[in-house]
């Protein structure tokens, strides 16, 4: 789960990281009054789950409250990477002497959270990583001990020669690590970590990504989810315990398991079609999941054919068959459906489907080819 900048900054502030004063506005008038209250030049920053906000025109410097109102008017409602901006953060603009980068990510290779720090921070940090990798220092942390003071200090000195500033940086890294662990992050970063002309460090932008598996035991973090910033069909799917990603094609796919779901999408493409979605109904035997999956898929007007690819390992294919029958009785389909199922209770499933006017095959390639054919025909009609 992604957090907005303002949410990440609240968590960082709670851990002690110096953050410029600011507040969130949903209207230009609110933006104006926040700027008035701050009494400084401000930044007005779009709060959307997308990178490159500045380059898209979603981050503006404003000298006066009237200016903040005007810029907020322009930013609120604008679209950045297909996401509509509904909130802006209005925050005191910092004076910048230099910009550093400090981030932590859970690294597959070392199997640890790894700090990455660089004195060359800012929006082009990826280019720094690619062209001058020696400017980035990596430090894996053993979570059983946490970030040790000397480790933080060593990174502090990598960033700043002045011991007073290095100490400030070390403290901020310990605080960032605390926030990272307490929120159950898979990623947390401060970019830029700004050094002001009077030698103070301040976190001007913050980003946090939460491991979804942490949310059950961290209800206060789960409550930060902003459903308005996600596709409605994806919210619907998550609430139904399905993994769903909407795509642009016209073959709606319902599959058991993520690997087989991806392989099914690949096969749709292989036979000249385009998948409308990724949808994993998981390994459980629950007809309700099938009903929900069909509701979500049929709500997409692009879908011209529905393809079920079910491998019954834990899943009982007769449960899936019953789900299809129940769902289509309640809401008759307006597009063709192709069903491939094999595995546990396959004979029973085929009988249930046949008794209700459906046909089913156990050949994955043949089913995908048929679905692509029907979707293409449906799209042409």
């Amino acid at each position, binding site marked *: 789960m*992604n957090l907005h900048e303002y949410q990440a900054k609240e968590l960082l502030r709670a851990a002690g990281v110096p953050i410029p004063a600011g507040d969130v506005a949903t209207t230009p008038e609110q933006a104006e009054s926040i700027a008035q209250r701050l009494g400084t030049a401000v930044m007005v920053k779009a709060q959307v*789950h997308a*990178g490159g906000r500045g380059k898209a025109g979603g981050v503006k410097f404003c000298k006066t409250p009237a200016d903040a109102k005007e810029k907020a008017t322009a930013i609120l409602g604008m679209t950045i990477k297909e996401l509509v901006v509904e909130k802006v953060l209005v925050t005191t603009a910092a004076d910048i002497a230099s910009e550093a980068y400090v*981030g*932590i*990510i*859970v*690294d*597959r*290779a070392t*199997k*640890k*959270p*790894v700090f*990455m720090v660089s004195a060359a921070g800012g929006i082009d*940090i*990826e280019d720094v*990583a*690619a062209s001058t990798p020696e400017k980035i220092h*990596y430090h894996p942390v053993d*979570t*059983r001990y946490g970030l040790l003071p000397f480790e933080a200090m060593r990174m502090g000195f990598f960033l700043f020669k002045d011991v007073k500033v290095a100490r400030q940086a070390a403290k901020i890294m310990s605080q960032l690590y605390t926030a990272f662990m307490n929120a*159950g992050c*898979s*990623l947390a*970063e401060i*970019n830029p970590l700004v050094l002001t002309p009077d030698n103070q460090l301040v976190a001007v932008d913050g*980003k946090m*990504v939460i*491991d979804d*598996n*942490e949310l*059950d*035991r961290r209800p206060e973090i789960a409550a930060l989810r902003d459903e308005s910033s996600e596709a409605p069909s994806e919210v619907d799917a998550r609430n139904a315990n399905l993994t769903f*990603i909407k795509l642009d094609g016209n073959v709606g796919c319902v*599959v*058991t*398991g*993520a*690997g*087989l779901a*991806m*392989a099914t*999408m*690949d*096969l*749709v*493409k*292989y036979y000249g079609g385009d*998948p409308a979605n*990724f949808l994993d109904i998981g*390994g459980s035997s629950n007809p309700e999941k099938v009903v929900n999956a069909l509701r979500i898929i049929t709500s997409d007007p692009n879908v011209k054919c529905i393809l079920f690819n079910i*491998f*019954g*390992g*834990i899943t009982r294919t007769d449960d899936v068959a019953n789900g299809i029958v129940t769902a289509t009785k309640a809401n008759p389909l307006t597009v063709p459906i192709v069903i491939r199922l*094999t*595995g546990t209770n396959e004979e029973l499933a085929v009988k249930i489907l046949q008794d209700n006017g459906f046909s089913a095959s156990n050949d*994955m*390639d043949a089913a995908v080819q048929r679905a692509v054919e029907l979707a293409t025909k449906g799209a042409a009609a």
Partner: protein
Amino acid sequence: MSIFIDNRTKLLVQGITGRDGSFHAKQMIEYGTQVVAGVTPGKGGQHFEGTVPIFDTVYDAVQATGANTSVIYVPPMFAADAIMEAAAAGVKLIVCITEGLPVLDMTRVDPYVKEHGARLLGPNCPGLITPGQSKVGIIPGRICLPGNVGVVSRSGTLTYEVVNQLTQAGIGQSSCVGIGGDPINGTNFIDCLAAFEADPQTTAIAMMGEIGGTDEQEAATFIKEHMKKPVVGFIAGQTAPPGRRMGHAGAIISGSAGTAAEKIDAFHAAGMGVAKRPVDFVQLIKARLA
């Protein structure tokens, strides 16, 4: 021969009285796995299905039965502790089926397991099977056939699909191992490939990867440099949309996005057979067994 498990494997089931644990314990017993013990705190002294003794702790179960392998079906918030409990009790192979473990839990579990000299398979994996001898986990036994092909995969159902197609074509398997799809797991492709290379029964290997990370690229390098046996690879997610970006850090640390194209290139560079579709494994493996 086989890898990791065989007919001498003595299995204990952590969470044997739960919904999933009891269902799959029965399936494993039916398949012929030696299920010697179950663990559910508070139910020590009872018996599962009237035959398998249940213990309160893994330590007690290992002391009483000599179990050398454990399979875990406990809820995600308890799974990290269950894995470490098994390692501390001296279990040498720990298979964690549970899905949804917080990745930060795994950063503590991984070194703990290694320090205790144990191997962890998973979490979030289907387990493994040595056809005709032993199954630990949830891979459906009836789709497997004893034979000479080693199967290793990051996915569950995709493994079943490929194994099923191999079996229907009369191509048997030495062992099938699902390593799981989580960012941090106990056993990776290279661990399994090295074990298959050393296993006299295995003569060819089918490997199913996915987009994300660099495990498959590292496996390809290992295959090129250290393996004599032929390997056929497949990558799921060739048409997946580019993932939603994880800030700057993801791109900085991997230097790449872990795309299917990158992984398939690495397979070609290692001289591997590359299956474009799951069904292609049948012909590609057949050609390499001949």
